[in-house]
Each structure stands twice: as C-alpha cells, then as structure tokens.
C-alpha cells in the first residue's frame, strides 16, 4: 500500500486508556469500544484496500454528547474521524491509529416528516433507503439513490455529496438537503440552512455538503421529499459500438429529454452482469443503454417513442421496453449488481469514479483499452451516461504480488485522463484518501490552498479527519499569513485566525 497517512502521535496512543475513560464519562460505559475484537470491524470502510484499526470507537447518542466529545478532544489535541455506515468508496472514514473514531450509528431516528412542505428531519445515522421507506406509504420518496442506499447513512451522504443513477434529473445530495445541525471541532453547535429555500447569509450548508467529514460532525439533516412519479418505464437498448451509444445519449439530451436515469455498460460489464443475474441482457452488442423515463403515464409513453426513434437512428439493436414493474426492476437488476457481478471475474476489483464531458467518451474508452493492455489488467465499464460519470472497474488479484500497485497505477492513469479531457477526478464517490494525491492533477496550489483555508475556518487545529482530501495539509497559521509590505500588515485591527 503506497498510501501515506499523517504520522501517528505516539503520545496520544500511549494515553489510550485515559482517553477511553474520559469518553466513557461522556457517553457511558457501553458506548466506547476499545477491545481489539470490538475495534476490528471498524478498520476500513468500503475501500477495503486500506485498513487501520482506530485508537478507539465512541458511539454518542445525542448532539450534546457529540459536542462534549469534540470539545474534549479539541482541548486535548486528539484527532477525530467521523463515520456513518462506513460504505465510502474513497476511504473517507478510514481510521487513524491515533484518532478517535466517532460513529453516528446510534443517531437512527426520523424526527419529523412534513408532507405539506415536503421535507423530513432525520438523524444522520438513518440509512438513505430508510428515509424513502418512512414516507413511501404517503406517496413520497427521497431522490438521491446511491447503489449502497440500503446501508449508507444520510450523514455519510451529506459528507460525500452522494449521487446515484437518478441524479441527472433529480440532483445529488446537495440539491436535496435544506438544512443541517453541525457540531464544530470546538464543540460549538450551529445550524446551517433551515427549512427555507434560500440561506439567510453565506450558503454554509453548501460547503458542508461534500466536505468529507473535515469541517464538522452533522447531527441532524433536513431533506426535501418528492412525490413518487405516477409511472416509470425503462428501456434496454443494445448498440453495435460504444460510439453509437454515446451519440444516442447526446441526441436524447439535445432533443430536450432529461431521462430519470441513463446508464451505459460495455461488453465486459454486460456479460458479467448477465452471468450474475440472468435478466436477458443482449450478449451480442458492444454497449447497452438503460434509459428510464418517469412522470405521468402520458409523458412516459410519449418519451419512450421519442427515445426509440432516436436510438433507431443510431443503429440500435434489440430495443426492449418494460411493460411491468417487475420487468423494469429486472432491467435495473443487472446494472445495480454490476459491481458484485464484475467481482466474480476476478478476486478483487477497484472502482473508479471520474467524470468527463460526454463528447470525449470514445477517446477515453479507447485509451482505457490501451492502458488495460499496458498494465495487463482487465477493465469493465459502467457509466452514468447522462452526466458523464464513469465507473471503470479494474480487475486484479491482491494475492498476486504487485497487482494491487498496478491496479492503483492504472486507476490513477484513468483519472489523469479524465482531467486531461476536461473532466474531474470524482463524480460522486469523493476524494477521501483514494484520490487525495491526485488533487494536484486538477487543482493548482492556490486552488487547494483556498479550499484548505475554508477548512481552517471550521477546524483551525486540523483535528477532524486528517489525511483526507488534501495532499498536503498546511498549518492554518501559515495559510493565513498575508503579504507584508514595508513591514506592516494591512488592516491590523481585523482579527485573523
């Protein structure tokens, strides 16, 4: 493993028993885990290539407890790593040897549902799917639907700004939350956003969402609810080439249609998925599109015809349209099981998450094929085609010496390629530790410093989730330094951090 994390503080590690006792005084005996067997399950998140047993785990149940824990850790200079359900694919919740892992799993209640103003107030440990489950009988749902929605928590979704297959039409987490209660590292509790559509001052909620657990601990979230569409229909469309599938996607959007979902799979992914779930995907095509249209029944019918006509102009073969809900779910089953399905092709796989301008798809896939040959590792592609978010799955065997390193190098090359063609390193999984050292590919030093200065405004001692997102963590005092002309700082009266 080539990942370098901040040097652990031996002094803190030596104080482990004392820290456990102090935290037990806040949360009670049972809510601190410090036995080796108890800590083991927390050693990694969804990015299992990286593991580290935490110093200890604390599981608070109230905002007041979170506040006291953070205030105490802040006073003592002890690092804290927040964790929701631990499904991050970028290592956002990777523990540190000298840090307290703060689990929000006990914050698992839906506090309030307001169907008339279409919002729900939930605790951060509530799973994404549980929000929908809580409101579906009334005909509502929570729109962002990451593939891990059965397990991932809304607090984790806020930290990572999670997406899902429906986000071209319905947005990511950031577009579907209204407010949050946030505990800062010094223990201060603030509310950002609220139940209004506009923030009253700076849109701090906007920067908290997607901050990957580095600016504060979210203890309550207000989310928007949407009425469930009257109908949803899906189409399966096979194409003789990836290029034609790509042109079809562009034409669908150019014609004014924003499908609820538009997913593409390449040949290896189609074959793996079909072998795994046997839902009748065509095996003689180079690319498969799943297009989902939702809305009132009349809209679905109309748009199905439009998309079918567009697909026909791009050499589509074997168009199938779902006629029942079971059939629609079957169309999706293969795509939703694509990761485990590909997982059967090799002992391990490494999932990438770059986004590219869609017009660059043929170039990127061609280059990816060349890289696959160069590294001697297979790759299968699933792709949120509507918004250009690629998920190449690199196949490797961690037991073979050097393969993990080669897989990481291959992945890094893919992400560099995404940036080179005008795209970005991560569309929905977050930077975490995984893409941390690639940040300079996309951002210059001044860009990263500006982002880190915002981090410093929330956590000046850099105690929250260190080692994530930023390749180099500058001391906040150093970042705050101003140009000094003729020996004097401008505006000496203004407080600086």
């Amino acid at each position, binding site marked *: 493993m080539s990942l370098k994390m901040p040097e652990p503080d031996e002094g803190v590690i030596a104080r482990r028993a004392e820290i456990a006792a102090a935290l037990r005084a806040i949360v009670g005996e049972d809510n601190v885990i410090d036995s080796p067997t108890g800590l083991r399950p927390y050693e990694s998140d969804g990015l299992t290539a990286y593991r580290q047993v935490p110093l200890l785990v604390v599981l608070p149940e109230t905002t007041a407890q979170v506040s006291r824990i953070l205030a105490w850790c802040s006073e003592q200079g002890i690092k804290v790593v927040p964790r929701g359900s631990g499904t991050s694919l970028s290592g956002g919740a990777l523990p540190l040897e000298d840090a307290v892992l703060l689990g929000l799993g006990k914050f698992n209640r839906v506090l309030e549902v307001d169907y*008339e103003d279409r919002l729900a107030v939930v605790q951060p440990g509530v799973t994404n799917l549980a929000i929908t489950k809580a409101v579906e009988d009334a*005909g509502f749902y929570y729109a962002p639907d990451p593939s891990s929605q059965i397990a991932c928590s809304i607090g984790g979704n806020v930290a990572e700004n999670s*997406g899902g297959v429906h986000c071209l039409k319905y947005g*990511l987490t*950031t*577009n579907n939350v209204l407010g949050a209660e946030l505990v800062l590292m010094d223990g201060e*509790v*603030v*509310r950002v956003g*609220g*139940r*209004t*559509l*506009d*923030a009253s*001052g*700076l*849109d*701090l909620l*906007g*920067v908290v969402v*997607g901050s990957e657990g580095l600016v504060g601990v979210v203890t309550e979230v207000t989310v928007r609810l949407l009425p*469930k569409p*009257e109908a949803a229909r899906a189409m399966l469309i096979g194409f003789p080439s990836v290029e034609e599938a790509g042109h079809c996607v562009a034409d669908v*959007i*150019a014609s*004014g249609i*924003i499908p609820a979902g538009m997913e593409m799979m390449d040949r290896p992914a189609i074959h793996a998925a079909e072998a795994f779930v046997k839902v009748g995907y065509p095996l003689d095509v180079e690319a498969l599109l799943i297009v989902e249209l939702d*809305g*009132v*029944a*009349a*809209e679905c019918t*109309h*748009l199905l015809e439009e998309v079918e006509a567009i697909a026909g102009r791009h050499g589509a073969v074997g168009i199938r349209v779902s006629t029942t809900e079971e059939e629609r779910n079957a169309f999706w089953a293969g795509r939703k099981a694509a990761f485990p399905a590909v997982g059967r092709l090799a002992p391990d796989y490494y999932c990438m998450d770059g986004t590219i*301008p*869609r*017009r660059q798809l043929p170039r990127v896939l061609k280059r990816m094929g060349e890289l696959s040959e160069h590294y001697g590792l297979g790759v299968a592609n699933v792709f949120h085609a509507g*918004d*250009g978010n690629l998920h190449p799955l690199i196949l490797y065997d961690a037991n073979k010496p050097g393969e993990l390193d080669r897989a990481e190098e291959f992945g890094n090359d893919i992400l560099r390629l995404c940036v080179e063609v*005008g*795209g970005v*390193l*991560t569309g929905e*999984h*977050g930077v975490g530790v995984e893409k941390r050292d690639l*940040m300079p590919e996309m951002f210059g030093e*001044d860009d*990263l*410093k*500006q982002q880190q*200065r*915002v*981090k410093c*405004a929330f956590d000046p001692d850099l105690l929250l989730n260190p080692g994530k997102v930023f390749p180099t963590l500058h001391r906040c005092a150093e970042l705050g330094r*101003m140009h000094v*002309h003729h020996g004097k700082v*401008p*505006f000496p009266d*203004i407080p600086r951090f």
Partner: protein
Amino acid sequence: MILRPADEQELCETVRAAASAGTRLSLEGGGSKVSMGRPVDDCRTLSLGAFSGIADYDPPELVLTAGAATPLSQIESALAENNQMLAFEPFDLAPILGGEPGVTTIGGVVASGLAGSQRLVHGGVRDHLLGFRAVSGRGDAFVAGGKVVKNVTGYDLSKLMCGSWGRLAALMEVTLKVLPRPASQATLIARDLDPRAAWASFARLLGSQAEIAAAAHFPPGTLEDHAISAVRLQGFAPSVDARAAMVERIGSAEGYRRADASVATGIWASLRDLSVLPRNPAMWRVSLPARQAPDFLEAFAPGDVRWVMDWAGGLIWLSTDRPAEMVRTAAQRCNGHAMLLRASADIRRAVPTLHTQPDALARLEERVRRAFDPASVFETGRF
C-alpha cells in the same frame, strides 16, 4: 475613478495593491444593483467588465462557461437559440431598483444568488453553478468546481459564491449547468382564496404527481380585484395536458382552471418586475418555510403591507412603511429571514440589507469570509 483591470494579472495586482494600501473595493459587473445596500463612499469601484463573453457552450453537454461580466441577456439568447435555459430563472433586480433591464451580468446573478419562480422545484443559482474562476482578497487567482455536470472533487466553493454579494472574491468566469427549455407550458388559476387556502392548495398540488413548476398567489387588488392563485406546468405537450387535467381534478374544490396564454404570461411576468407592488415604501424579500407564510402575513394590519407570494409560500415580496425591525422580527418568528431590496438612502444607512445571523453562525461566517479575504478588501460595509 473606477478601476478597470484588463485581465487576470491586472486584477490580481489591483486587489493586492488595494489590500496593501488599505483601500476597499466594491465589485461591479453591470451596475444594475448599485442602489442596493448601505450607501458607502470610502471605497473604490472595481469593474469586472473585461471578463465578458461566452467561452464555451456545447448544448448536449448541458454546460456553459462565460466571463462573469457577460450580460445575462447575451447568455439567455445563446441558450434560447438551442432551446435551453438557466432552469433557476435568473432574477434581474433592475426593474425593481429602477434600472435598465438586461444590464445585469451573469456574475451579478451569481453574486446575488437570486432566482425566480422556478426555483421552487428546479433549484436556485447555487444548484446550477458548477465551477468558477476568481481572484481572492489576497490577490490570488483560483478555480473551484469543474466544467462537467457531476463533480464532487474538492470543496464546493461555488455554493459560497452564490449570494456572497461580492464579499468573498472577484469573479472572472463561471460555469453553469443548463437544461432543455420546456416545449410547452400551461398555467392554471383559482380565484378568491385567502393566503392559507392558497398555501394549502399549493401543498396538495405539489405533493401530487402533477409536477408543478411554479406556484404563486396574488391578493385582491394586485393582479385584479380578486385574489389569484396560479400554478405553472411545463414539459412536453402530452404530459402538460395530462397534468393540467390532474390539477383541475385535484384542485376542483378551489376551482383551478387553465388560463389563457396572455393571462398566464402576465402573471409570471409580474413576478419578475413586481410592477404589481408600489415602489415608494421599502421593498423586502422574505424567505420562509411555505407553511408559515400565512402566519407571517397575519403579523401585519391589512392596510400596512402590499405583497405577493411566490414559491408556493416560501417567498414573499413585500412593500411596506412599517419599521424594518417589525418586518425582521415577523420573519424570524416564522423561521424565515428578510432582505431589504429597495429603500431610501436614509433607511439603507440604518438597516442592513441582509438578515443578521445568530451569534455562533455569524462568527463562523466571519471566519469563512476571512478565509477568502483576510484583509477585508471586499468588505465595503455595503452588505
């Protein structure tokens, strides 16, 4: 004299020089909002006029990149040519502030963060700004976000720029998500509802599958003698027709009926220029949870305020002579906040434009502002 840097390098130098000399800079794009905020005279105006023009626009990618000083009208016509739009319905304050419409720039739209009627379901400016390039108060040029529609790389600083009122950084370039323009639309109206009944009908319709795009309510004496409640549908014609029938069915108790196109156009245009509200008293923009809009209005004696309601109740435009303190207290009691849009210079000298935040939040905000602008170059005191 107005400072007019010609390019990025000059802008950086100008800001650095100002920081060093202790000069404060008031950022200006098209100047459409100069009469907003506290009048200030001890600062220099910095025009961002050099950063103008559409840099990249590929319609199927749903992304447009333009210089911050590009006139909104230029961007909207480029989008219209390709049947696309800015789905948040950019709000041009000029008609309210007494200026020329169309002068406002895309950078001004971002800095004010104000969106129109469609914000209710399509999101605000914040939901459509994908990335930007700017110069911080340190005089450093930086970028944030990206130029693709889906991106979570690094902190989402774009959100902070929306509604920052020129207090964080000088915008040079913005990248926005654009969406297809709806092929067809319909407006349905009901008459004679009071604010509470209007809100309740909006809540019922927005909770249905009719996919309402906008919902507004006008009390008697604004659009006509009767109160008017209006909902807008948009999309493909067969879908709009089916949903219009749905609204007539669900809203039958209130008598929702499809309105003529000319009536519909007038309704939504009146929410853009607010010509239905008197200009002389102070004008406020109150954002609050929709269900509390009727409570907010009941805080005033009927003759003391003139108003219209947008966002299904979540936004109230208010004209009143009542003291600022009373408006802000009423907004706060309803978990909302009030922005002072238009008022005499005397009032604007005494009353801050933006609603004051609770202490802990205000301190955090202050630290975030200093993270962009440590020497307070952009803190002119106007906002």
